[in-house]
């Protein structure tokens, strides 16, 4: 980016200031319209009591935050496993030796099947099915096998992201590495993967954001995490406000995460594509 100074910097500052003012004003108009119009609807009082009950909100929030730790824990132990398994699958798919043909077939079948079947089915099948074979406690924990189901399905998605990254590295990079005497795996390890991974970090973050919400599906097989806790509170009070509270807890994590992703995408674009045209 060119060094901006003097008049140009002032002009850019002014432009920025104006665009902030316009955005703020238009947002305010939209919010004002909603706030003014919605309460005029005939059953607004009932909807407000059902979804936006302040006392209910305050009552549920601590329980929900408590339950949210379970989501965070599942997320934290699933993520490294997903990245590791996905990388293995992507590399298997990218193997080039003729002898490894079965490996390629298996990895293609794996990504196709895992992505093609709804995640809910995997959670039931693995979460109830595997422990049902007669495994003793604590190794039959739904938390454990629910997490395994999450790791297996998400790895298939993430493996495709990694594969796209690996394939985006130009063939000449490999050729150069091999001509320097590096083996296939050495050039993969030192030349291809470092470039591939850096390129796919933003789409990976996207998958992480959606994983962060999907871990709630583990509650289908028993564990009471935030969404389930919200459902329990909803039933107890015949009131949907706990879901709003849960949504806000989720937003507190997903908004910063998506902003971080946007920033990383932006940085990557600047790094690879030069100055953006205004």
């Amino acid at each position, binding site marked *: 980016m060119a060094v901006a100074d003097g008049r140009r910097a002032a002009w850019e500052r002014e432009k920025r200031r104006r665009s902030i003012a316009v955005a703020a004003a238009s947002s305010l108009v939209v919010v004002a319209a909603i706030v003014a119009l919605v309460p005029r609807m005939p*059953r607004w009082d009932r909807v407000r009591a*059902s979804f936006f009950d302040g006392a209910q909100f305050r009552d549920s929030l601590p329980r929900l935050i408590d339950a949210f730790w379970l989501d965070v824990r599942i997320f934290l132990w699933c993520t490294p496993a997903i990245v590791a398994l996905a990388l293995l699958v992507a590399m298997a798919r990218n193997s080039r030796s003729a002898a490894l043909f079965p490996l390629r077939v298996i990895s293609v079948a794996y990504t196709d099947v895992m992505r093609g079947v709804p995640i809910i089915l995997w959670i039931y099948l693995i979460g109830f099915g595997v422990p049902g074979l007669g495994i003793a406690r604590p190794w039959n924990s739904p938390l454990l096998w629910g997490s395994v189901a999450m790791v297996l399905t998400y790895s298939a998605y993430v493996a495709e992201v990694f594969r796209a990254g690996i394939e985006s590295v130009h063939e000449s990079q490999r050729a150069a590495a091999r001509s320097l005497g590096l083996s296939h795996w050495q050039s993969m390890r030192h030349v291809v993967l470092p470039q591939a991974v850096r390129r796919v970090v933003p789409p990976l973050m996207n998958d992480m954001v959606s994983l962060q919400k999907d871990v709630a599906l583990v509650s289908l097989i028993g564990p*009471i995490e935030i969404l389930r806790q919200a459902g*329990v509170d909803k*039933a107890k009070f015949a009131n949907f406000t706990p879901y709003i509270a849960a949504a806000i807890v989720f*937003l507190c994590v997903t908004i910063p995460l998506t902003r971080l992703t946007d920033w990383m995408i932006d940085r990557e674009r600047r790094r690879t594509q030069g100055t953006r045209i205004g």
Partner: protein
Amino acid sequence: MRRRPLSLAVPLVVAASLVLAACGGGSGDSASDEAATDTTPAGATIDPAECAKGKTLKADVLTVATGNPAYSPWVVDDKPESKEGFEAAVAYAVAAQLGLGDDQVEWVRTNFDEAIQPGAKNFDFNLQQFTITEERKANVSFSDPYYSTNQAIVGLADSKAKGVTSVADLKGLKFGAQAGTTSLEYITKVIQPTAEPFAYDDNAGAKAALEAGQVDAIVFDLPTALYVSGVEIEGSSVLGQFPLTDQVAADNFGLVFDLDNPLVECVNAALANMKSDGSLDELTLKYLSTDAEIPVIQVG
């Protein structure tokens, strides 16, 4: 290039102001249906048929909601029109009290959430074992109870809960229940096991967890426990039931109405008549035989 603060701030401001606008203002000004739910008088003082005129959703038709699917013994074979099953029979008996014949009863299906959502309802009343609680009364209206029950535990033959006679001996076990039921609440409030209970969407999930050994026992209301153990979960039985105590009120099932529906008092009059002439007891005996000898687990 430095636009980040704005793009972060705008959605946050919008979301926050919407939530604040919605939550602010008077909350909790709707506790006005106390009169509808007191203990039952012997026989009604008003004529339910007279009372109900013009108050039903559709003229001269009683629209009744049940679950989808509806389970035995509450509705036999998921066919409420057959009048078989306790709740199906109660609905037709209430209709008769309101001066409506069998052909003037229409059935619709809802789940729990549809029954409690704030919009207009597509039923006059909804019966699917809704427990009457003070908390729920802020958002729906209940009739007087048409059935009262207690909680019971179901487990497989080799369950660690087998032969247990006191709640103290249940503390170390792992429990499950259907999410959003008073049974789940019973686990956390009364049994208070050391391990957190698991919750399931339906009996199928509870059954799978029982078979996978992930839980030692499932808590249901007694009639459901008897049905589930007898029909749905092979090899299971009702291992014990919990007595009603001062701390543990009975689970009183009520018909659910849209908040402040004027039909509530008519249906209460109908239920009062059915209690005083013994017809409600007859239906209870017919469909919800609890004469199986279930051991009682002492509480506290």
